[in-house]
């Protein structure tokens, strides 16, 4: 990476949470810039050229989703949103607007750091797949060039749609994808509202890839929001 100290802009109105993030992230080698309003945050994002933005959805002056849209107008830097529980529709809105990931308050520093790492890695163009187009996670191996899937070195037969679904999730492994995003990517825009398609195929995929579909290791459900391939 070019910059040894990754920069993060924190847009959050609560001073105590800002303090927690500043100390927490600072001690893990991040340079933190703070903004307490959406407007200020957009300015900071433009001026500081950060590597990542942490954005609270409940801001006093403007909607967090509007901040994301403003940032996305000129940059694809990763955005992680923070929000209270039971605000699933709001989270989905933020993710569909271009946020990369979300965290529900209250959260621990460990969770946040994990999300930041995944986001930065995606932003740097890196992913879990190796140079020869083979993706490996645990006992799962996917050969993206030959379109073959192996579990414990045994080939698993997937239907075209099942494979497409898996590859979409793998492409953004570690990152949460909303149902709408997945449906668009796998079935096309006209299927964006047919969430039950996604659930049925996801269920089929789990039957084939997970040892216990009720305690999945790879294909996690983000309740009320979407899915995430766990790395």
């Amino acid at each position, binding site marked *: 990476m070019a910059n040894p100290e990754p920069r993060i802009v924190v847009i959050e109105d609560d001073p105590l949470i800002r303090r927690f993030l500043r100390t927490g992230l600072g001690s893990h080698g991040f340079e933190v810039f703070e903004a307490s309003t959406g407007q200020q945050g957009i300015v900071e994002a433009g001026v500081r050229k950060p590597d990542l933005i942490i954005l609270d959805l409940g801001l006093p002056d403007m909607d967090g989703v509007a901040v994301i849209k403003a940032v996305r107008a000129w940059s694809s830097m990763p955005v992680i949103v923070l929000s209270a*529980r*039971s605000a*699933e529709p709001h989270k989905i809105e933020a993710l569909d607007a271009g946020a990369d990931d979300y965290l529900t308050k*209250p959260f*621990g520093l460990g969770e946040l750091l994990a999300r930041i790492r995944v986001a930065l890695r995606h932003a740097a163009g890196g992913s879990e797949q190796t140079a020869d187009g083979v993706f490996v996670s645990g006992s799962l191996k996917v050969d993206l060039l030959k379109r073959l899937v192996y579990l414990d070195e045994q080939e698993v037969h997937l*239907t*075209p*749609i*099942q494979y497409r679904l898996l590859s979409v999730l793998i492409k953004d492994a570690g990152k949460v994808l909303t149902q709408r995003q997945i449906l668009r990517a796998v079935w096309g825009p006209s299927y964006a509202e047919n*969430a*039950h*398609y996604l*659930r*049925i195929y*996801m*269920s089929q995929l*789990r039957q084939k890839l997970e040892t*216990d*579909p*009720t*305690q*999945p290791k790879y294909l*996690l*459900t983000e*309740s*009320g929001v979407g899915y995430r391939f766990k790395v």
Partner: protein
Amino acid sequence: MTPPDQRPDPDELLAKVERETAKARRGRLKIFFGAAAGVGKTYAMLLAARERRAEAVDVVVGWVETHGRKDTAALLDGLEVLPPKRIEYRGAMLHEFDLDVALKRKPSVILVDELAHTNVPGSRHAKRWQDIEELREAGIDVYTALNVQHLESLNDDIGQISGIRVWETVPDTVFESADEVELVDLPPDELLVRLKEGKVYLPQQAQEAVKHFFRKGNLIALRELALRQTASRVDAQMLDYREDHAIQEVWQVSERILVCIGPHALAERLVRAGKRLATDLRAEWIVVYVETPELQRLSAEKRDGVLRILRLAEQLGAESATLSAPQMSEAIIRLARERNVTKIVMGKPSRRGWRRWLMGSVVDSLISHAHNVNIYLLGSPRNRRGEETAFERSGSRRGVLPGLGQRLAGRKAGYYRGYVWAVTVTLLSTLVAKLMFGRFELANLVMVFLLGVVFIATRFGRGPSILASILGVGCFDFFFVTPYLSFSVNDSQYLLTLLAMLAVAMLISHLMANVRSQAKVASHRERRATVLYAMSKELAASRSEEEIVCAAVRHLYTEFSSRNVILLPDASGRVVYPQGKSLSESLLGADLGVAQWVMDHDELAGQGTNTLAGAAAVYFPLSSHGAVLGVLALLPVNLRRIFLPEQRKLLDTFLALIVQAITRVRLAEQAKTSQLQMDAERLRNSLLSSISHDLRTPLATIVGSASTLAEDDGSLKPADKMELSRAIYDEAQRMSNLVNNILDMARLDAGVVTLNQEWHPLEEIIGTVLTRLKKNFDQRPIQVTLPPGIPMIYVDAVMIEQVLINLLENAIRYTPPDSPLEISAETSSFAVEISVADHGPGIPQGLEERLFEKFYRVRHESAQSGVGLGLAICRAIVEAHGGSIRAHNRPHGGAVFALVLPLNQAPPEIEQEE
């Protein structure tokens, strides 16, 4: 100090204060009162108006008739005159006082001339005095003018004096409610001079009659009446004053007068006499009509006449009543006793001489049975015949029930059938008698004729049976009594036979007719009772206002064959059509404006009434204790079905039942709301106590540990620091859960949660839950058993996950750390049952239900955390999904919590790839 016995009665004072505040809110009415046209009432009124205007009062002329008199017209100069309303009536353009413009303009004082005026058909009210009432309701003071001859109670007397009857009258109540009456007096001689000079306006067409009216004798009598009327008002005011100031020679007479009327010409005079007596004695008065079986046979016109008189009595301030009883005197005595009547006013007995002696009269039996009651008898007028026709005529002419006349036709069809039958049966009897003739005694032949008469009497009533008896006697005489084929009688003993036969036939027919009519009355009553019972039963079973309204509309339709609708006010008090879909019996297109008027004034309006008679339907207020709950709009097929006394009574009973039912439902709702409020109050209290305990405990740990860390001077070992941090973290996590639970419950209670139901595979839901709780499980074995091919369920996944999380967290909290937990599901065709089972101590006996109550915990103040909301949240969520949740113990130890979710629809199909 006032001695206690002379102090004014507090109730009386209170009533007076109420009267006065009601008066203060209402506009004041000032009447310029005169003996005849031409005395200068309008002039005096305009002068008064100018004076008020000089005092800078907002005076407006609503309607003034100057009749082209220059000096009067001159007084209008400089006064604001409202534009008249132009109404087209039968091709002519008529001008009329515009009530709406006046109400909109809302001046302090308005002048509206000619209080007795009858409005052009199509106006809101039939009479101008009603317009003025509405102006006063709106708080506007009114100046108006009135001639003595237009006063309702004097109308009769003046008619007799002057020979001219005016049809435009004003109820005495309006006159009495006036705040001020100014007598405009002019000696008859001067008036006659003015008349000669042409200063008195006379309508062109009636010049002669009116000239007749302006005779000196007439004018003196009218002047006397006007003066006396004014004087009696002053008298009444004096009395009020004396009561106010406790100057009393104990004058608390509670007189009550009962006026008995019948379907005769005297009725109207009886009512007026009663009114005068009541006014003089300051007594309450009741006008009663007793309907005996005989009277029920009266023609419709006569019964409408009675109805009209009862209305008139109400207008004059009486209470009216219609009683149904076989005996008039009994009913009157009963009413008199019930209501403590002191005086009875009635007509002189109509039966005279031997008939009165033989059959008695109502008056006689009243005199012998009613003690302590004074009876006043009013003589019948001499030309009975003439007056009677006047009575009948008046029904349609006075327009109390406009349009009623046209609707009364019909029913005459089957009328002549009885007579045809009478002739036929007599002919048959004659034929049979002819066959018997010679072989049997003549007495037996008589029996055959009698049989025929009885038959006709039972089937067709009095008229045909009398015809049959006369024909029978005739035929018997003609054919069977010597000389044959002649009406003369040789043997005089046959004369007796003939007379006896006629008498028996008449008697039988009379008895039969009575029996028939009583049977009819009885069956009528029974039917009415059945109808009322059916409706009251259904109303009693109704649980909501909509149900009541539907039931009421249907029953009203069945009974009165009239489409109808019940209009209830919305939150802002405007009557609106009910929200639901209309019934086939519903009246569509009721005039909401009229309904609103009825709602605001608690009076009936619409067709057949004095107010807004142009409306197609009749509008009844649904009121109880002065509060109007709504309005019934009814489109009558036939006005008589609604306004005949017994029908009206039935309708009133219907309305009372409906009002009662609505009131009952509203009270029940109120009780429910207050119960809910009490529950909420109780909950708030337990919430406060729970929170105070459950939030303070973790807070104590957090504050303690954090302060230790913050104040560390380097003496803490790294392991201790770690320990303290962990404690802070754990406790904070616990608090976070608590707060989440409280917030969830609050949102569920507030009803702001809407289910976001979608199709989800159950295994995915369970998977999400297990992933989230992974840390909490530690080493605990979890076993999930799902039957293969379990269908997707239609739920709000986030919420059902919350349910399972709560159940599992409970299980973790209350069972040993290494005991296994089991999650399983079973499906039937209608439901899916998801169970969470543990191997812990189980649920204490009898608490299976209580567990799900808010803030309920098995052990209070225990070390276990949680506010006791977890299971309450579970139940709320599951019930929101239409399912149920319950808990029970397993036979070999441990508890099971099972939630049942309905499978109402088939899950969506998707096309298979493989």
